């Protein structure tokens, strides 16, 4: 109970104190989040001992706000708190001279509070409330530099995209509470039949929106207009992770049909956004696309029926991705830009930071002995053993290959440009970064006990599977490093925002790389290269197909809908005289109709 209160109230109190005192925001935020981390550690330790901490706070009559710390939620809470501390340390340096830092740290801590509330919530209504709060806080944070051009639009876009997907969560929650008669999340697993199917699909919609799976990925790319610590927090452990967390928690109730849908969304999401990441010309946007791609992995894992592996990957990804973003933030700080062109060689100028970034990048690519290797192995094992293996394994492998490729590419760009003069030291930012990098590197061996704690059975893995995974990861990374994409991407200055962007970029990528590589690396690796090219072409085709579907089907449908709406709107326009008495009369008629329906309704049953 005390740990629960500490976890939630310490960041909250810090946020309120910051907004009230308007002084020393960084120190207050750090103190608050550190206390929160202590609380989360306490929770984790207690649940690891086997305790189950739960609290029911008085809220709506008959619907108390339930908080609960199971091993699963305590793991999430610990992850959120850890990332929050590291990101805030980094932000203390990053935002040191920003005039709006009081607002920044205030909202950040409140955001962390909301996220902790979300992961610890024990009933749907609390979860919904926390869900709304993180949406709102992220809107504030993405729009933090609201006076800059395009930032308000990006914030609004993020808000609207996630909002429209949130509709799914609302409907799902209503349905779940209505069907099970209890707002508790645990009670939902008893649900079967059509309600479970519909609710599961709606939850998938909500999760896809928050986790930026296609077709919602656009908001995440635009959200890069926010300060980098915000991106780090948003991507690793909070907003985007909320989608995956939602599905992980709901996993016990999802029927098989929904799992298939989850697998399709996640698999294609992982591949498509992976391709987008490869084509991206902006470091932060590249990382954003890779976030979406990695969350696609988690969905694949959930679809394979192994949410615990998804938890592992979520945790690994949280540490890695926040480290990457913090590194990107330092580079951005140096060069005052995030495009890959401008960042070329930024890594060479700061070897220490680059080393951290590179470690995190290789970890994300899935190289041993770092965290994501373990989790990807778990993912591969899970997909291999699932009934959907023929679908999921290739998608997972493609995703892994792509994650190696785009990280290799990012490293190459950062390393290969001209190194500039020595930079001013950035102690806070480096501490935040390295803290996370160390976690990213060393977390792997802890996964075994964690798995046991979460109660997963370790399945038999065919021995070639880890080897295959490792080969794919290493191959991807090597590929990304070897293909010099900066020159190739030169002509494509129009931001690769749509699926169309992926297609054209990749087309050039594969065509030119064929010429370059054919000339440069001749005999030894011919076969590997042929395979690579095949993979590249497949990717191109997939991307082109996606593009076509996007343009012809989805856009066409949307335009038709728009036309219809506009026509009916024209018709309705005549009703809207703007005269208040007319409108009052119309609303009276409407109410009368409603009453009529209500009166007739009982008769018809």
């Amino acid at each position, binding site marked *: 109970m005390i740990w629960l209160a500490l976890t939630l109230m310490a960041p909250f109190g810090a946020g309120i104190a910051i907004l009230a005192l308007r002084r020393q925001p960084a120190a207050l935020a750090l103190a608050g989040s550190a206390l929160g981390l202590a609380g989360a550690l306490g929770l984790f330790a207690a649940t690891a001992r086997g305790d189950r901490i739960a609290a029911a706070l008085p809220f709506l009559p008959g619907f108390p706000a339930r908080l609960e710390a199971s091993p699963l939620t305590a793991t999430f809470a610990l992850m959120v708190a850890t990332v929050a501390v590291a990101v805030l340390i980094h932000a203390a340096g990053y935002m040191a001279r920003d005039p709006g830092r009081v607002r920044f740290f205030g909202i950040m801590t409140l955001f962390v509070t909301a996220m902790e509330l979300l992961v610890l919530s024990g009933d749907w209504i609390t979860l919904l409330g926390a869900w709304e709060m993180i949406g709102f806080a992220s809107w504030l944070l993405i729009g933090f530099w609201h006076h800059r051009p395009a930032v308000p639009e990006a914030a609004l876009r993020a808000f609207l995209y996630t909002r429209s997907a949130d509709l799914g969560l609302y409907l799902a929650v209503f349905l779940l509470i209505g069907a099970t008669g209890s707002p508790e999340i645990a009670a939902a697993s008893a649900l079967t039949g059509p309600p479970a199917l519909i609710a599961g699909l709606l939850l998938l919609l909500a999760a896809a929106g928050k986790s930026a799976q296609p077709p919602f990925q656009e908001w995440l790319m635009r959200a890069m207009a926010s300060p980098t610590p915000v991106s780090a927090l948003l991507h690793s452990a909070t907003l985007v992770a909320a989608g995956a967390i939602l599905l992980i928690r709901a996993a016990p109730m999802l029927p098989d049909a929904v799992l298939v849908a989850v697998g399709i969304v996640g698999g294609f999401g992982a591949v498509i956004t992976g391709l987008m990441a490869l084509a991206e010309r902006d470091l932060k946007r590249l990382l954003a696309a890779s976030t979406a791609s990695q969350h696609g992995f988690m969905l694949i894992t959930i679809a394979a029926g192994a949410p615990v592996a998804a938890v592992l990957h979520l945790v690994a990804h949280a540490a890695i991705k926040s480290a990457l973003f913090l590194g990107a933030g330092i580079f951005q700080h140096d060069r005052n830009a995030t495009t890959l062109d401008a960042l070329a060689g930024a890594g060479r100028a700061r070897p220490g930071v680059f080393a951290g970034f590179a470690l995190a990048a290789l970890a994300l690519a899935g190289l041993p002995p770092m965290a994501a290797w373990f989790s990807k192995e778990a993912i591969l094992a899970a997909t291999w053993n699932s009934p959907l293996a023929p679908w999921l394994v290739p998608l997972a492998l493609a995703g892994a290959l792509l994650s190696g490729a785009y990280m290799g590419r990012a490293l190459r760009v950062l390393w290969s440009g001209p190194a500039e003069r020595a930079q001013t030291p950035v102690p806070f930012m480096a501490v935040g970064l390295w803290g996370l990098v160390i976690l990213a590197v060393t977390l792997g061996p802890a996964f075994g006990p964690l798995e046991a704690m979460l109660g997963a059975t370790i399945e038999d893995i065919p021995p070639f599977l880890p080897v295959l995974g490792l080969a794919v990861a290493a191959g991807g990374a090597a590929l990304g490093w070897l293909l010099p994409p900066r020159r190739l991407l030169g002509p494509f200055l129009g931001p690769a925002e749509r699926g169309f962007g992926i297609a054209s970029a990749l087309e050039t990528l594969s065509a030119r790389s064929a010429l370059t590589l054919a000339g440069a690396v001749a005999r030894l690796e011919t076969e590997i290269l042929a395979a690579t090219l095949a993979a590249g072409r497949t990717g191109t085709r997939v991307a082109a197909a996606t593009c076509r579907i996007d343009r012809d089907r989805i856009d066409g449908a949307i335009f038709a809908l728009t036309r219809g709406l506009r026509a009916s709107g024209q018709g309705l326009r005549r009703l809207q005289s703007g005269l*208040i008495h007319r409108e009052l009369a119309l609303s009276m008629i409407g109410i009368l109709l409603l009453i009529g329906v209500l009166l007739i309704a009982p008769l018809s049953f």
Partner: protein
Amino acid sequence: MTAELVVVLIMAAALFAIGIYGALSQTNLVMIMMGVELILAAALLNLVAFWRYLHPGAMAGQMFVLIVMTVMAVEMAVGFGIAVARFRARGSVEVEEARELGG
């Protein structure tokens, strides 16, 4: 069937009808608000009557009356705020002169 309840409900229905007539027929914003007040008064009467004659033990009924009273006060505050702003801008609160909301 209980005589007291029916009496109160009929009175409330009459107040409601008068309120609707007023809200629809008046040209002045403040007069329209008077109509709305009458409608709300009818709602209050119904709430109290149902509480008194059907569930006198359940205090939630009275609580609803308080909430409706709050709504009345809010309606007044917002309505007068709009009226003041409107009058400042246009010099009149006649609704026939307000067409800006037209589609």
